[in-house]
């Protein structure tokens, strides 16, 4: 996983709530068996409208998505995270994220930042008025900064440490392989088994 320390970039203000993962990446894209090449599928249905914010020339190259509440609801597809990253987004800001999407994002180094809706409203106003306005997401200080706006955000220390260092979860877990083996030795015999081994 790519490490995340601090990022500064222009924004795409997305004034929509309940942006589900079917909107982020429609199901027919899920037939791909790789982690890349999803950028053209990002918000595919909405991008057919030339006026959709992602299509505006002033939003090209933006890397910070500022979305409405309940972003990433629905399907567990990690492809939604890959699509956002493949397109070029480094971080997503919202007042509320769906649990599975949030988990997926942090495992891929896409920093999802939870801020009060009031701050999100302020970021929308700023970046709609001035498309060139930049937003800084600083994970070391757990702070979001933009012109006239400073807001602290929370992220648990363990997730922050893994993101800052770009650590791979599986290697961390396997350091405790002895604990797993000890647990397995005590599992009751009535637990289900898919095959006899």
């Amino acid at each position, binding site marked *: 996983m790519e490490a995340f320390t601090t990022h500064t970039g222009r924004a795409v203000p997305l004034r929509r709530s309940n942006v589900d993962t079917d909107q982020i990446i429609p199901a027919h894209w899920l037939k791909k068996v790789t982690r890349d090449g999803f950028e053209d599928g990002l918000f595919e249905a909405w991008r057919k409208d030339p006026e959709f914010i992602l299509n505006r020339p002033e939003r090209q190259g933006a890397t910070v998505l500022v979305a409405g509440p309940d972003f990433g*609801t629905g399907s567990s597809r990690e492809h939604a995270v890959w699509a956002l990253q493949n397109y070029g987004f480094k971080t997503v800001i919202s007042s509320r994220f*769906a649990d599975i999407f949030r988990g997926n994002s942090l495992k891929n180094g896409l920093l999802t930042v939870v801020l009060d809706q009031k701050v999100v409203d302020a970021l929308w106003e700023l970046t709609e008025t001035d498309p060139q306005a930049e937003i800084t997401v600083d994970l070391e200080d757990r702070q979001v900064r933009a012109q006239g706006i400073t807001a602290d955000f929370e992220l648990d220390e363990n997730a922050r440490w893994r993101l800052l260092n770009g650590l791979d979860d599986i290697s*961390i877990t396997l350091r405790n392989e002895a604990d797993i083996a000890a647990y397995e030795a005590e599992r009751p015999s009535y637990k289900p088994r898919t095959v006899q081994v």
Partner: protein
Amino acid sequence: MGRTLAEKVWDDHVVRRAEGEPDLLYIDLHLLHEVTSPQAFDGLRKSGRQVRRLDLTIATEDHNTPTLDIDKPIADPVSRAQLETLRKNCAEFGVRLHPLGDVEQGVVHVVGPQLGLTQPGTTVVCGDSHTSTHGAFGALAFGIGTSQVEHVLATQTLPMARPKTMAITVEGELPEDVTAKDLILAIIAKIGTGGGQGYVLEYRGPAIEKLSMEARMTICNMSIEAGARAGMIAPDETTFAYLKGRDHAPQGEDWDAAVAYWKTLRTDDDAVFDAEVLIDASELAPFVTWGTNPGQGAPLSASVPDPASYEDASERLAAENALKYMGLTAGQPLRDIRVDTVFVGSCTNGRIEDLRNAAAILDGRKVADGVRMLVVPGSVRVALQAVEEGLDKVFKEAGAEWRHAGCSMCLGMNPDQLAPGERSASTSNRNFEGRQGKGGRTHLVSPQVAAATAVLGHLASPADLSEAPATAGV
């Protein structure tokens, strides 16, 4: 202090707990399908890792599989390649697989329970958000992303932050014409699509205890639509009776030991939930969605709401967008909404009881002219059972299409899709924009409402079918 059901199952699976770290949780059962596993197997290959517990892992094919001509090569080359990738991966790593054409093939959340693999007090994961279905057995079951699929394959564990718990107590009794689907749609409308975020839900109370296992699965299945990764129901005699004798249920002394443990899996009287919601079952009625998220629903007797009636700006905007997408007008009675397609199936409502309920209404009646009705059993076993009971004949004689098992039109990854502008009454779980096909419009309903809607051509409940069917009582 006592513990809740979720806390008991959680505590029994903690492999390692350390200050400042998420708990490392052991996973008893890992279900795989073709869509969310290829990149995980790739990850294993790249790091030279194996599947740690093949005996706790099982795969089936469901999302991409066609429901017609299953004996012929799959027409869509991309779908075919994805299924072939799963077959190759399962062969290479030694994972048990039930491919298209196998008698145990079907929607992954129908297959696990019917094999008896889903058991009380187990932890169950799958790269699919509807894994919450398995919570109906008192299992802690939740959907995971592909990185976590790889993590479970390699370690049989997951680092997880301990969730909060929410009780959803359903008092009273469901009226005769109200189903588990109506109940869960009403719950989601009440608490919202984000209401369950960060929680494990526990459905309890007299109305829940009376439900069959199939109905309980319908309820737990849609926990994710309320934002909760998992929903649970305490196991009881109904659960034990469902499991007894199934292929992978414990036998002999193991059965007795298992039941003794399962009986401890109840929330203690002095346990405290982090949040509580109370529902009066007797006040409920058949429920349908009008919008583009599962929280946008109302009783069938109501009308399409006026977005201006919402105080919250973001809800108002969401309702405006939804009405525009759905082609509906505020104030329009929901019963006046005409549909082109009716879909009965999915991990929400594709089990045998669902098919029986839909068939009972269609028996002796006809699907309305201009309406296409698809009946897609949740698994091959469900299909075989339905054929044994003659349900397939009832559907076909009514003019519905009887298809092969799979996810089908729930998410339209196979050819079963809505055309742009087409409208469905669907027993599935998501009414998102384009979910059932680009530009398609979805109303979520119960199997009974689906069947009545198919007969009348507009959203309707069985009570609207005033005339007796031609062959009533046969």
